[in-house]
């Protein structure tokens, strides 16, 4: 009996209500820049920012529910996840993982649920793991969520290098067993890391290497710091190479790619990668301009955006690429899904609080 393919059958998203354009971000935080410079430098005009009461888990729960609604609409009956993978760098707590509480809030009692941390590449890592679970026959309906709250959890609002880049949000997808020719079928992947370059983008303190209260640490050590130029170069090279590897495993050339959905970090990285791959700009899809870099949430959010706007036909040959701290990177090929994306507002009304 042949192995089943993993098929993306539900697509959901959730964004905080508050939209912050560049001009307000600059004004509120006293950043030494202006709107036009940010737009030229990054391709970002605005981002959604969570309020202090909205957690990663709130966004993840809403996006997960939206993905299940999307899957139910396509299938004609409810589909129930049997495992939940949450890609995030900004969990609700340092301990425990956020995924179990998200599963509980979604009514998924006793299902396995775990966080996956590969920073901005996290969704591709979680997607690959989920695909493997389906094709191996271990689970049938993994729910994969990418959710982040960088602006409240990791970013120094007064650090121009990072404050201009990030936004908050969550995207989610549901998988089911199917065949490789169907819309939504996941085909091939490539993943990689380079731990020798961990220092290029990281939060220096707050973990076991440099715990809270360590002598000599300052407030800034608990925020994300980034060597932007080095990260730019690494991102371009790593995503390009990973995409080529995934294409090769799919037996596609770059000419075959009908839709390229990259991690939405910086438009210039996306353009450079697409240029090196030879994918025309008209086939590149993203929402960076309106949501900024949402880290692990960016690829499912961009997929949902392209689907919502009917920019890509179901079944189109699609390439995903991502890169993040670690360094970690990845690429994935798939047939563009036919699931219609749904969105839900984050809310915390059903959050019972974490018991110790």
């Amino acid at each position: 009996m042949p192995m089943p393919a993993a098929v993306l059958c539900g697509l959901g998203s959730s964004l905080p209500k508050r939209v912050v354009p560049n001009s307000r971000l600059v004004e509120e935080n006293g950043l030494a820049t202006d709107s036009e410079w940010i737009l030229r430098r990054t391709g970002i005009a605005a981002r959604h920012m969570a309020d202090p009461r909205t957690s990663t888990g709130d966004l993840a729960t809403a996006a997960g529910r939206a993905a299940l609604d999307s899957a139910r609409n396509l299938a004609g009956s409810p589909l129930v996840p049997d495992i939940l993978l949450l890609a995030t760098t900004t969990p609700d707590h340092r301990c425990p993982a956020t995924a179990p509480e998200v599963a509980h809030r979604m009514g998924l009692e006793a299902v396995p649920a775990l966080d996956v941390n590969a920073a901005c590449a996290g969704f591709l890592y979680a997607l690959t793991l989920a695909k493997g679970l389906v094709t191996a026959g271990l689970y049938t309906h993994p729910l994969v969520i990418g959710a982040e709250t960088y602006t409240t959890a990791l970013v120094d609002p007064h650090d121009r290098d990072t404050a201009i880049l990030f936004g908050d949000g969550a995207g989610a997808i549901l998988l089911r067993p199917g065949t490789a020719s169907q819309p939504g079928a996941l085909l091939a992947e490539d993943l990689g890391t380079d731990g020798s370059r961990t220092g290029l983008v990281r939060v220096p303190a707050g973990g076991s290497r440099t715990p809270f209260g360590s002598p000599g640490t300052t407030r800034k050590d608990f925020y994300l710091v980034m060597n932007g130029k080095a990260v730019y170069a690494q991102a371009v090279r790593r995503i390009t190479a990973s995409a080529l590897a995934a294409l090769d495993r799919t037996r596609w050339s770059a000419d075959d790619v009908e839709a390229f959905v990259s991690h939405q970090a910086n438009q210039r990285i996306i353009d450079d990668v697409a240029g090196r791959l030879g994918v025309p700009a008209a086939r590149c899809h993203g929402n960076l301009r309106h949501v900024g870099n949402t880290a692990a949430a960016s690829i499912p959010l961009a997929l949902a955006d392209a689907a919502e706007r009917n920019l890509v036909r179901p079944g189109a040959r699609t390439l995903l690429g991502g890169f993040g701290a670690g360094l970690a990177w990845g690429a994935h090929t798939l047939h563009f899904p036919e699931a219609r994306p749904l969105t839900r507002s984050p809310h915390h009304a059903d959050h019972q609080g974490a018991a110790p």
Partner: protein
Amino acid sequence: MNHHFAHLSSRLTEKFDIDPGLIRPEATLADLGLDSLAFVELLMTLQDDWDVDLDESEMPPQTTLAELVAAARTQSVTEAPDTAGT
């Protein structure tokens, strides 16, 4: 030098839309108006074109085009022919 400089000039005009009138050996990267990401992109392009390793951290904005070409040439195993003929 002239071959490398001619290639650098063509990259600057065609890929980075730099005014050809600004491209002189003594012009600095800052003179050309390249921001830091464009500079990294230029170095990556030249590394691929010439198969050399150019470290952006060793090249401040005051680096001249002549110095950039010289840094690349010191790493070139074999000098490409001077197709410009000068």
